[in-house]
């Protein structure tokens, strides 16, 4: 086994452990962890199977294998960022509804208090 393989595998294992720890502690929701777990699976796969990248390079017709890795990962990151924007938009809407509901309830509550006083 090459030294670089050992390093990537070690980093992968640490990464998976860290993700698991976040999930266990309730700091990361499972649905957001899926993408990270898939990423580590890919990394692990190609650190074990060294010819795999060369094979993919030939299939896709990319000249330098590193470019294939960069293109693939940048695309995946862009898609994930878009997904996060969607999540943020949903949170924004939910937040708005909650804030409005709170202000309406506060007003009702104040009116009740005043009625009771008088």
């Amino acid at each position, binding site marked *: 086994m090459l030294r670089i393989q050992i390093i990537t595998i070690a980093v992968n294992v640490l990464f998976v452990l860290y993700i698991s720890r976040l999930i266990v502690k309730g700091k990361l929701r499972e649905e957001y962890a899926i993408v990270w777990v898939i990423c580590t699976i890919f990394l692990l796969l190609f650190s074990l199977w060294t010819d795999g990248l060369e094979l993919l390079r030939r299939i896709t017709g990319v000249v330098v294998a590193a470019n294939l890795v960069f293109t693939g990962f940048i695309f995946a990151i862009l898609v994930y960022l878009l997904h996060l924007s969607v999540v943020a938009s949903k949170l924004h809407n939910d937040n*708005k509804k909650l*804030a*409005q509901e709170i*202000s*309406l309830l*506060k*007003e009702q509550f*104040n009116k009740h208090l005043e009625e009771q006083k008088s």
Partner: protein
Amino acid sequence: MPGKVLIVIPCYNEEASLPTLLPELLATKLPNGYQLEAAVVNDCSKDNTVAVARKHKATVLDLPVNLGIGGAVQTGIRYARDNGFDLAIQLDGDGQHPPRELHKLINYHDETGANIVIGSRFLEKEGFQSSFVRRLGINYFHWVNRLMTGLAIYDSTSGFRLFDRKAIEMAAASYPDEYPEPESLVVFSKAGLKVAEVPVIMAERQGGQSSIRSFGSLYYCFKVSLAMFFSFIRKT
């Protein structure tokens, strides 16, 4: 039976202008026997807007986080829906929309049955007319709106507007957050609501700052154009 009108006043740091605006508003006699209630929507102001509004016996809808003008107006609209108001009129808290002009919107609504009535600065060139650059932007939105809805609304950025029962139901369900004025017109007219414009005389703001300043104005034009386009192609 006389109807009820809710005056929705979105406020962000308006403690300076409310003490003149609220007494004037609450003393305003509305036409056709309409009963008036004023609702100050405090969009998480950093000053004493809430205390000032309470002192003047206005209904206060106090938002715990800053939602922007659209979210604030929608809060008032939802209050109007939940409490059975017949009309809701948005009136900005900075004193630009004088309460003495309210009867023009209400009368126009009662005469024509329009669902949305916009108070316009430009139909008759009287009162505060805004700066040149702003008028340029407003002109641009006039044409975009015309293109998308076929409506000839001259003051589509005006926040002085009346919602009838049907428009209240619609806006309570969905209303844009940021810079909602031009965009909401596309939504309303696509839904088949009748939008009309009536000339009013506006004043210059008494206090506070416009939400649209310097660099923000380019962003404003771009964001609103985009939002209008997507509202235009969205299926209702």
